[in-house]
């Protein structure tokens, strides 16, 4: 038996060698409870897109309130019903909107929708495997995620509203149902949804890691892996180590909320009466939460790193600059991500000396991040650039990552952060560096791998329109927010017109809201392009971008098992673009050195 095959334990699965033989699958096996990694990837993508529109819509609702604080929103009554009181948005519902926008975007779109889609779709295709190590667990991962989505979605329709304590759900606010409306049933459902989400992430994560370790095809050593696979691999490891801690924090919070324990509660008075809870510490929750929360932002951004590296090198027709440095910086960021969590807590009364330690560790992250940025720019430098829609988004990603990353250095300073904490400066920073940037990585990935997913190409012209509208509106939304933040404008405030200081910013807030609406509207161009191209797009060839990686050696629409014949064998790294002396400007990984004698470098001659 070929050991490249995934049928390592033949007892559980049927031998995959006979994969070319015809499978009779009914509709349910093929599209709903599919164990094929490609279908599961698409399921994650489509669910992620649906969530992105919901999350985006919620942000438009609160931007309306912020942009036009004096206006009446009676026209929203058909959608929001009782949440509009006398034409005004209910303040508690405003808090729920911000909370749900954060939760949906961070977890359901940029974690599940991004790494769920591309890790599932690309890992087996790019390492030369028939499928994930365990197709069944992979299917389970999606459906548990789906269940968790349902729970969160239903919580939007509760009478007391969904969770409203911020996406970080700090106790005691989130632990006491009597504190705000959003801490009632909505919070319980938030916790249940999150517990299910974590289970789904763990099922997916062990699968990704194991697949990369065990199922690489012959010749695919770790240093011949595409950077996407490295990024997904390390992302899965981060998730595997960080999510269990959120699970612990959430379980303890569930007990505090529902069973009367005092893990996070002590000395609380409500309406003048003392609660019996004693001995706990709310700061403890912050530590547990951010031990996940900080790696989580890298779980969001690292798949985008990988996708962008791949798209940029393919479309610049140049080898990636500093391949090993790219891997090293990914590893560096992964390790550092676990030792910086308390920089979210500089104002929690932490010992200033400890703060300076976390500040120092935080600022070190600038080094691997800068390595990546310089390498992307060096890859673009004097490249033979093809401006595909994916490439536009990849370059846009680099721009956003730089703009957002620079303010990270400011916020990482404990002294500066104490002033800027919980202002719009923070909002602008993380939306640029991990929100919009990760979205751009996701768009780059969708435009780039769409032909492999659906056998058709997305429309380039609409892609350009989508790119420019999105790119411009992202900057128009978040650049002004820096100034609001420096002026001390606090985030999560329903109304600020009562403060003389901030009235000055009414026009700027209106401007931001208009830009946000523009950006959100532009996404419908993408949605149309996406759906239309699935059915009517221009038919793609097997390798439309002339790319080197293994997924482009499959048929236009790879079937179950990915390669009709034997698995491909890998001879070279994935970035032999524009190699001097080569017949074409790309040499796929499956081409042995003996066939490329005209382009082999001196050290490769003896491999001929």
């Amino acid at each position: 038996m070929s050991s490249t095959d995934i049928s390592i334990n033949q007892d559980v699965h049927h031998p995959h060698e006979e994969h070319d033989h015809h499978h009779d699958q009914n509709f349910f096996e093929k599209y709903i409870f599919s164990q094929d990694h490609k279908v599961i990837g698409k399921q994650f993508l489509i669910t992620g897109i649906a969530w992105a529109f919901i999350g985006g819509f919620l942000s438009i609702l609160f931007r309306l309130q912020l942009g036009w604080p004096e206006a009446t929103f009676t026209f929203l009554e058909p959608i929001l019903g009782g949440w509009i009181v006398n034409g005004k948005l209910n303040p508690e519902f405003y808090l729920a909107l911000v909370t749900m926008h954060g939760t949906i975007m961070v977890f359901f779109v940029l974690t599940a929708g991004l790494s769920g889609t591309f890790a599932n779709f690309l890992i087996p295709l790019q390492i030369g495997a028939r499928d994930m190590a365990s197709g069944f667990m992979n299917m389970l991962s999606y459906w548990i995620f789906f269940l968790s989505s349902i729970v969160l979605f239903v919580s939007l329709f509760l009478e007391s509203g969904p969770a409203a304590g911020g996406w970080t759900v700090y106790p005691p606010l989130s632990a006491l149902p009597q504190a705000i409306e959003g801490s009632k049933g909505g919070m319980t459902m938030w916790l249940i949804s999150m517990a299910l989400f974590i289970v789904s992430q763990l099922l997916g994560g062990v699968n990704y890691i194991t697949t990369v370790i065990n199922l690489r095809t012959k010749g695919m050593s770790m240093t011949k892996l595409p950077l996407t696979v490295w990024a997904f691999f390390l992302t899965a490891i981060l998730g595997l180590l960080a999510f269990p801690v959120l699970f612990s924090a959430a379980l303890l919070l569930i007990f505090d909320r529902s069973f009367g324990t005092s893990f996070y509660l002590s000395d609380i008075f409500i309406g003048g009466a003392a609660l019996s809870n004693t001995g706990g510490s709310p700061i403890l929750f912050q530590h547990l939460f951010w031990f996940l929360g900080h790696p989580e932002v890298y779980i969001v951004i690292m798949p985008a790193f990988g996708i962008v590296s791949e798209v940029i090198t393919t479309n610049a027709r140049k080898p990636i600059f500093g391949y090993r440095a790219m891997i090293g910086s990914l590893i560096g960021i992964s390790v550092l991500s676990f030792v910086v969590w308390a920089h979210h807590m500089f104002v929690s009364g932490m010992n200033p000396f400890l703060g300076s330690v976390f500040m120092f560790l935080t600022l070190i992250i600038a080094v691997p991040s800068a390595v990546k940025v310089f390498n992307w720019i060096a890859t673009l430098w004097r490249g033979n650039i093809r401006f595909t829609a994916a490439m536009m988004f990849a370059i846009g990603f680099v721009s956003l990552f730089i703009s957002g990353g620079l303010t990270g250095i400011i916020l990482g300073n404990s002294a500066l952060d104490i002033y800027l904490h919980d202002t719009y400066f923070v909002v602008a920073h993380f939306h640029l560096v991990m929100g919009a940037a990760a979205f751009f990585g996701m768009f780059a990935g969708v435009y780039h791998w769409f032909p492999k997913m659906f056998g058709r190409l997305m429309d380039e012209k609409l892609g350009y329109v989508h790119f420019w509208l999105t790119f411009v509106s992202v900057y128009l939304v978040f650049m002004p927010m820096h100034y609001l933040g420096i002026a001390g404008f606090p985030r999560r405030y329903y109304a600020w017109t009562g403060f003389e200081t901030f009235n000055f910013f009414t026009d700027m807030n209106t401007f931001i809201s208009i830009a946000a609406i523009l950006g959100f509207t532009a996404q419908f161009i993408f949605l149309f392009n996406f759906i239309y191209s699935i059915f009517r797009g221009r038919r793609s060839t097997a390798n439309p971008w002339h790319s080197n990686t293994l997924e482009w050696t499959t048929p236009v629409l790879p079937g179950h098992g990915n390669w009709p014949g034997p698995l491909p064998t890998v001879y070279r790294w994935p970035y032999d673009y524009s190699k001097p002396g080569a017949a074409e400007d790309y040499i796929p990984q499956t081409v042995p050195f003996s066939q490329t004698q005209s382009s082999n470098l001196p050290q490769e001659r003896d491999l001929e």
Partner: protein
Amino acid sequence: MSTSTTLEAPKSGTWDGGNEPLKASYGKLMMWFFLLSDAFTFGAFLIVYGLSRHRHLPYTGEPEAFAFSQQWWPIPEKVFNAFPGFHGVDLPLAFVALMTMILILSSVTMVLAVEAGHRMDKNDVQKWLLWTILFGSIFLGCQAWEWAHFISGTEEGMLLSDGTRIFGANLTINQYGPPLFADLFFFITGFHGTHVFSGVVLLIMIFINTVNGVYHKRGHYEMVEKVGLYWHFVDLVWVFVFTFFYLV
């Protein structure tokens, strides 16, 4: 770029693909990675224990004069000193030591089951799995007794400042000390107990499969090994839980 390629065949080193670099099947790797993440879950709980305990005052007086109070964290030897059938006798930590011994013994029988699996000795696998199930169940039974005793409390109970007495412990009140001591005890030993219970269920499932000859037909007893990994992990976690709650 790599120097590891020859003419037409790619190099076949440990990490060059097409093999299992860690010499473990994907199932075993998955179990290892799951256990790694589970270790982080338990790690978080034990850190919560450490921090919560640090927020409370320790008892500083003479050990003989120790009394339960909300003012200080109790001394475990004074809390866990009962033994079934020895009512009123002060046997500090005797019962939990017995429980721990039983759990460790179950790990030994698990090792023997795995070893019998390597020899493809179906009868021995059955025998040792049965012993493991037995010891695991006894451990759970002991924990149930320990919980029951902890919940019902001692005859004296604790005298509160308002003159009332409380007996035993639950998630909100605790006669042995601060409420958080009981909260953490129930939560962490309960979470561990859930793991042991899941382990026993898994063991029963693979025992049935073994009896039916599923693994014998398959040609290997790797499933026993995988459940064995889980079982040893749960055992190891108990050692830490035991250390945190009973020893330090």
